[in-house]
């Protein structure tokens, strides 16, 4: 049997359903984001742990030039090393049927007769390579899917200068390539970069690596001292061109995934807190209004002998019901949102199976958090209801305490109409509520901006990277550095309009105990095709001496302009040289180092050598030039800028769209929730006043102006604040969640994003305004005036 008081509760709730639903939506959004992010976090973390475990993902990774296999035993003898796996790893150029653009294959050697001891592949389709089937390879699942390749299909590869036909035995996944990205790039390009696993003997013989290896990965014993193992491994590999081992934390795929997880962790907490903060505020406003209109009911209840606790509990129950419905809707939609997110993640992160984990703890935490927020928001009102002295509740509340506003006190009242004065006084009378409304609306604008600025940033990066830095149409990389004369051969080819040489030298930079492996790019001082730009996007003229580092690299190495630097060259004669930092320059991607081409040549003690060229190309002859270059035996790789831009955009566009839509929706929910509730409360508080004005002869439009004008002022004040908050949020996002050695994004928020945020908020405001205006139109004058407030 439901008690009469509970019946009152349900009917009250039904009566205020529109407002309750608006609050439920905000709570649900907060809980949904919390559930979705933490579910995804749990799913990714557990999937990764299981995957790493099952496929025996290594813990230490190192590359060298060419080391004898006998070294493996000495590596295994390092204290703390459990398993050693030595491999041959090399990049090859691929000819994929149906694709004119170049593709790059990362070839990794695997034993023919058994599975790899570490970094085992997971076969998705087809089978593992057969022991005596020359030319059989496994290919990354995403690459095969992108090209619609099936096991049994063939593709052609240029391996160490020789054309080979490869047969795809199966498609595979590897814990080493959960995030498949080519070294030095930061976005995956499924079509143009793929990972391949090939029989050890065959790959070794193709690259003259018989009895040798150029890649080693280790599994450590439990409790091993990782830095010590790395130091000993480095010492062993150094004579063989070792360039410093990396722990798993720095392994590319792992690093990206880990970065993503920490973003999820931060956003999974920050976003819901905003939503729940807004929900708490809305509940506070709605409940305090509810209690104000029910003063006499409260008095009656107390007069009949209901205790303060019973009255407080009655209103708290109302809050708990709203919180519970919001929580339930949030959990359900969060679980759904998590599947969307999982889909999104599976575009970037390849697991054999993305375990879907919805931990009960996450549900409890999400619902608990929302309930806590709601209760804390409502507590002030609930206490007020409980404490309301019954004799006082018998009397109607005293008229609100109004006074001339600040603007009027400044003597500006002549310019303010009577209705405008009412609006201003109303706002100034409840400054806390007005400020919180502004904060709520501003938050929704900020959420929108934070969700959208990434698109602007990406566009900016594309513009700078592809149109200001890389102005070439094509770049050609040679197998071996060659004399500058080679440039003329390339320049003479039909279709080449201009050619500039470049030299990339792999080195280890060292200052004190700090070191980083980077490539120094040498460009001519007057380079016009491929340029180095400063933060203001002005071309930098490379100095005749010294090295130019990206600001991030300078920071990592702890050096500034003028500081000395040791350069250990990782190729050729492996010289160790000294140079100094000319200056630092801002850039977005990776850790870059530049030198004037001549200066680099001198540093390397070589003649005027180059490792490739940037070309400007006649568009009509582009394809034929591409074919000719690819066929040239000395050319290792040709890349075309158009395809780079296209893939860059393709990868991002679709996913950004999903995220953006979700964010706009959430921003709209908050704005609508705040504005709708604030207008409904205002209507409830002022129905009498507005009806009186109607009786006095004001039109519906005029009283709407008084009521909705207040909401309009709140919205207009909130918008710029929200956009600025959005910028700050976006800045924090760039600075703390994205910035790393691999990527640095400038804070770019376009006018378009700010305008769109304003549009979303204004549309939400308009919808809220229209629904309240409809109520206002139905205002029953006689009834309102008759009823005792």
């Amino acid at each position: 049997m439901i008690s009469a008081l509970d019946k009152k509760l349900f009917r009250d709730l039904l009566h205020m359903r529109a407002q309750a639903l608006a609050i439920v939506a905000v709570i649900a959004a907060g809980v949904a984001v919390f559930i979705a992010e933490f579910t995804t976090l749990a799913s990714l973390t557990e999937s990764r742990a299981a995957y790493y475990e099952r496929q025996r993902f290594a813990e230490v990774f190192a590359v060298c030039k060419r080391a004898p296999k006998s070294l493996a035993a000495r590596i295994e003898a390092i204290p703390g090393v459990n398993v050693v796996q030595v491999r041959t790893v090399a990049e090859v150029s691929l000819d994929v049927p149906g694709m004119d653009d170049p593709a790059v294959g990362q070839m990794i050697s695997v034993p023919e007769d058994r599975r790899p001891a570490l970094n085992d592949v997971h076969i998705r389709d087809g089978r593992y390579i057969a022991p005596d089937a020359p030319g059989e390879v496994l290919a990354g699942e995403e690459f095969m899917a992108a090209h619609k390749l099936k096991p049994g299909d063939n593709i052609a590869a240029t391996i160490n200068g020789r054309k080979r036909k490869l047969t795809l035995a199966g498609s595979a996944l590897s814990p080493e390539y959960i995030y498949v990205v080519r070294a030095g790039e930061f976005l995956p390009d499924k079509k143009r970069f793929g990972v391949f696993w090939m029989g050890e003997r065959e790959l070794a013989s193709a690259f003259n690596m018989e009895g040798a290896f150029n890649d080693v990965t280790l599994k450590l014993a439990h409790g091993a001292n990782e830095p010590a193992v790395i130091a000993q491994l480095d010492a062993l590999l150094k004579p063989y061109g070792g360039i410093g081992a990396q722990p798993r934390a720095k392994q590319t795929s792992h690093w990206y995934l880990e970065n993503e997880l920490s973003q999820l962790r931060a956003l999974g907490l920050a976003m819901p807190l905003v939503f729940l903060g807004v929900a708490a505020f809305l509940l506070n406003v709605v409940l305090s209004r509810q209690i104000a209109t029910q003063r006499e009911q409260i008095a009656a209840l107390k007069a009949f002998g209901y205790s303060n606790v019973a009255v407080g509990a009655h209103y708290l129950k109302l809050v708990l019901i709203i919180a519970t419905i919001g929580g339930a809707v949030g959990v359900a939609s969060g679980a759904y949102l998590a599947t969307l997110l999982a889909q999104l993640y599976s575009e970037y992160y390849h697991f054999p199976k993305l375990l879907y984990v919805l931990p009960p703890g996450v549900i409890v935490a999400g619902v608990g958090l929302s309930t806590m927020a709601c209760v804390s928001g409502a507590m002030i009102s609930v206490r007020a209801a409980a404490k309301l002295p019954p004799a006082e509740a018998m009397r109607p509340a005293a008229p609100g305490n109004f006074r001339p506003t600040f603007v009027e006190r400044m003597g500006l009242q002549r310019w303010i109409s009577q209705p405008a004065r009412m609006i201003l006084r109303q706002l100034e009378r409840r400054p806390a509520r007005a400020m919180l409304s502004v904060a709520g609306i501003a938050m929704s604008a900020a959420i929108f901006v934070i969700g959208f600025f990434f698109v602007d940033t990406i566009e900016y990066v594309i513009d700078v990277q592809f149109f200001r830095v890389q102005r070439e149409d094509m770049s050609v990389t040679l197998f071996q550095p060659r004399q500058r004369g080679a440039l003329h051969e390339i320049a003479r080819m039909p279709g080449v309009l201009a050619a500039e040489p470049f030299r990339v030298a792999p080195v280890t930079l060292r200052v004190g105990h700090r070191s980083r492996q980077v490539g120094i790019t040498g460009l001519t001082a007057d380079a016009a095709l491929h340029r180095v730009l400063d933060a203001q996007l002005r071309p930098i003229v490379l100095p005749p001496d010294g090295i130019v580092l990206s600001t991030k690299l300078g920071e990592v190495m702890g050096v500034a302009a003028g500081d000395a630097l040791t350069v250990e060259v990782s190729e050729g004669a492996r010289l160790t040289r000294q140079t100094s930092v000319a200056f630092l320059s801002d850039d977005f991607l990776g850790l870059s180092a530049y030198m004037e081409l001549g200066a680099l040549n001198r540093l390397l003690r070589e003649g005027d050598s180059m490792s490739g060229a940037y070309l400007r190309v006649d568009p009509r002859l582009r394809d034929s030039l591409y074919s000719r270059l690819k066929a040239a035996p000395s050319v290792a790789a040709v890349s075309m800028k158009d395809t780079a831009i296209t893939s860059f955009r393709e990868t991002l566009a679709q996913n950004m769209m999903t995220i953006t839509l979700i964010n706009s929706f959430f921003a709209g929910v908050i704005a609508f929730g705040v504005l709708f509730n604030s207008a409904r409360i205002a209507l409830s508080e002022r129905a009498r006043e507005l009806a009186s004005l109607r009786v006095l002869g004001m039109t519906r439009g005029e009283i709407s102006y008084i009521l909705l004008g207040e909401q309009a002022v709140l919205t207009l004040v909130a918008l710029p604040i929200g956009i600025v908050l959005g910028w700050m949020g976006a800045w924090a996002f760039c600075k703390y969640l994205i910035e790393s050695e691999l990527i640095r994004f400038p804070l770019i928020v376009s006018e378009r994003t700010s305008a769109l945020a304003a549009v979303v908020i204004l549309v939400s405001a308009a919808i809220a305004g229209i629904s309240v205006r409809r109520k206002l139109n139905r205002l029953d004058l006689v009834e309102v005036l008759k009823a005792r407030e």
Partner: protein
Amino acid sequence: MTSGANPIVAPPQAAVFSARGITKVYRMGEVEVWALRGIDLELYGGEFVVLLGPSGSGKSTLLNILGGLDVPTEGNVRFLEHDLTAANERELTNYRRNHVGFVFQFYNLIPSLTATENVSLVTEISQRPMDPVEALKLVNLGDRVNHFPSQLSGGEQQRVAIARAVAKRPDVLLCDEPTGALDIKTGIVVLEAIERVNREMGTLTVVITHNSAIAAMADRVISLGDGRIQGVRHNTSKISAKELSW
């Protein structure tokens, strides 16, 4: 009545309420309002008492204090063996719950509950309640039990309020201007209901009003003015509500 020795008081039984020197001072912003300035009185079981006075005379304040809704600034109020002035919040709540029935000028019904449910609100928390429908029949609303307040006339709403007040079988029924918001015809119907409760259930009934015509139906009329008792009249022949007119 101003003292127990007053010869015009012939107590039919022991005093239910006895008040000594009640003073009530409100602070309204910067001004002190003296609502009551030293009230002494006794109320007896089964009596029908009218507290008569103009607005601002302190009668509502007195009623609130008797009903345990408010406490006096000074003085002492006893209900049977309970000292209301020494009671804490919880004791006052229990006192209201178990002994007092309230009827308000503006009914104070819960608009979201039907007539029966409004009565149930009280019967659910009292110790020996009537059936809510029975209570409604007592005020001649047997055919309106499932109506919401908005579907009832003012007089009907006030009768629901009376049913709600008496359904707990209170020791005292306190009515604050029960006809204040009603026309004469409806007012008389409401007073008849109160009269019937007083007569049939023997409940001590206190009605406050500024309408001196109503005083004719009381056993005793206590006139209040300026926070003091101005006079006490004992009606030797009280008339029924039906015969009232104003």
